[in-house]
């Protein structure tokens, strides 16, 4: 049985582009302090960053929860927002529903969800239109 070593939850405010990415920065500092492998940290922070940006861009609010066990880092990002009507379509590289405002900020290239999936060892999305989205990512590490 894997032991849970650490659990942290971070709130994310929707539409607050000034703060977008702050939580991922905190996660990176925290993981570096734990001495984990640099590539594991990089993958985890990329997943967290892309997820955080999605919450800021599309949701009213969300929470990023990080759980560290002796074998994995689990990230769960749950938001209250419009939800994703077609998850398979959303996972396609290049597909984006970003507004012109978001594109001017450098987002909406349609690579966010593919980046998250690519950097995860296990990845899943659940969503309900009109309620919100939950993304789960597992990144394995070795101690």
């Amino acid at each position: 049985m894997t032991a849970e070593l650490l659990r942290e939850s971070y709130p994310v405010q929707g539409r607050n582009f000034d703060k977008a990415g702050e939580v991922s920065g905190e996660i990176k500092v925290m993981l570096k302090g734990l001495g984990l492998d640099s590539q594991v940290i990089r993958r985890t922070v990329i997943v967290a960053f892309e997820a955080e940006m999605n919450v800021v861009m599309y949701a009213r609010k969300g929470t990023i929860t990080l759980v560290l066990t002796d074998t994995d880092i689990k990230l769960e990002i749950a938001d209250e927002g419009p939800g994703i009507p077609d998850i398979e379509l959303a996972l396609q590289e290049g597909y984006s529903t970003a507004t012109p405002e978001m594109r001017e900020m450098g987002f909406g290239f349609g690579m966010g969800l593919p980046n998250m999936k690519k950097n995860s060892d296990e990845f899943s999305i659940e969503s309900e239109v009109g309620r919100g989205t939950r993304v789960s990512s597992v990144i394995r590490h070795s101690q």
Partner: protein
Amino acid sequence: MKLSEVQKLLDCEVLTDNLHPEVEIKDVVASDGMSEILAFTKSGELMVTGLTNIQSIRTADVAGVCAVIYCRGKRPQQNVIDYANSKGIPVLATKMVMFDVCGILYKAGLKGVS
């Protein structure tokens, strides 16, 4: 190629407190898309972008790039420079457009990431 040599080649102004002039650069990522930068970088690349918002530095931090060059004569606000200083990421600015920046760096022997 050292960052100090890149600075001279592109006639860059250094915006942060530190340059890290001896940092060795081999690969370059050039994009105005933050997710594109995250998709292609591995770590240690030089990042060239025309986006000067704070997310450009947050992306640079997440991607682990060694420095950021803002092109097209774009300049960030002071809070962006302060944030880059806090993260120890050198930030430079050039008046050259991205196409020219990429051409000059490619001709000098640097490679893109894919």
